[in-house]
């Protein structure tokens, strides 16, 4: 799932039109000077609906992912975050080889952080992905 999600983000036109190749796993590299940028990381993963067929059952997992939209201006961060949310919220279908049964938005929050003498805006979006394993 993780590698398929990364590839999906790197190749989807909505994401590339906003961020180009500024999509990073975990944290923003210190040398990034162009914004907005997108980072993502997995927060948790658990198995859904285990049953007595295990270990031979068809498995379904849920994973909580955090996406951070980072920009120098609030307007840019919020607009980009809205586009990411439109893409991911209630997504159903395939990401690479992974069949995603649902994506549910669980949280959106706005943050501000200082980088040197600059303020940046960070919109955090959390989603729960349920997918076939």
């Amino acid at each position: 799932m993780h590698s398929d999600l990364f590839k999906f983000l790197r190749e989807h036109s909505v994401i590339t039109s906003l961020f180009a190749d500024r999509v990073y796993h975990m944290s923003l590299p210190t040398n990034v000077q162009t914004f907005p940028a997108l980072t993502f990381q997995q927060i948790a993963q658990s198995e859904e609906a285990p049953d007595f067929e295990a270990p031979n059952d068809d498995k379904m997992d849920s994973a909580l992912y955090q996406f951070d939209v980072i920009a120098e201006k609030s307007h840019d961060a919020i607009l980009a975050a809205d586009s990411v949310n439109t893409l991911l919220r209630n997504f159903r279908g395939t990401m690479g080889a992974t069949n995603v049964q649902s994506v549910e938005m669980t949280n959106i929050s706005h943050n501000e952080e200082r980088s040197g003498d600059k303020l940046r805006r960070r919109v955090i979006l959390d989603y729960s992905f349920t997918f076939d394993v």
Partner: protein
Amino acid sequence: MAKVLSKSKLYIGQGVAPGVAPGADTFDQVGNVTALSGPSYSKDEVEHTDMESTAKEFFGDLTDYGEITFTCNRNFGNAGQTAARTDAGGQTKRNIKIERLDPADDSVLETADVIGEVMEWNEDATQGSPFTVTGRIKLSGTVTIT
């Protein structure tokens, strides 16, 4: 023996019981079970106190083996689930088999054979949750343990 986590398999025979004996039947496993309850063993108390008695006297009536209730993740391709749902809409007794397994290696610890009839099949589709089914099989006659 060490304690074991629960792991069981539930099977429904294709033949009509008791005409087809368990040993001659073909069984479909009810797949993807998450919980299995029963058989339960209970007897009514029959009082036979009389004027000769010095205290209340009872004996146990015939054993009622109760019912099997099961919960499973809905598997549209599973023949056992399909059979159970079909039987819930009819009046057919089947050979029912439960295997108790050792989760470490799936070896069979015990098998229970009994005749039963599927009395309930309840489907539960809740948004954001796995599609599950609960069912009930009423048991008739003796449970044979091997």
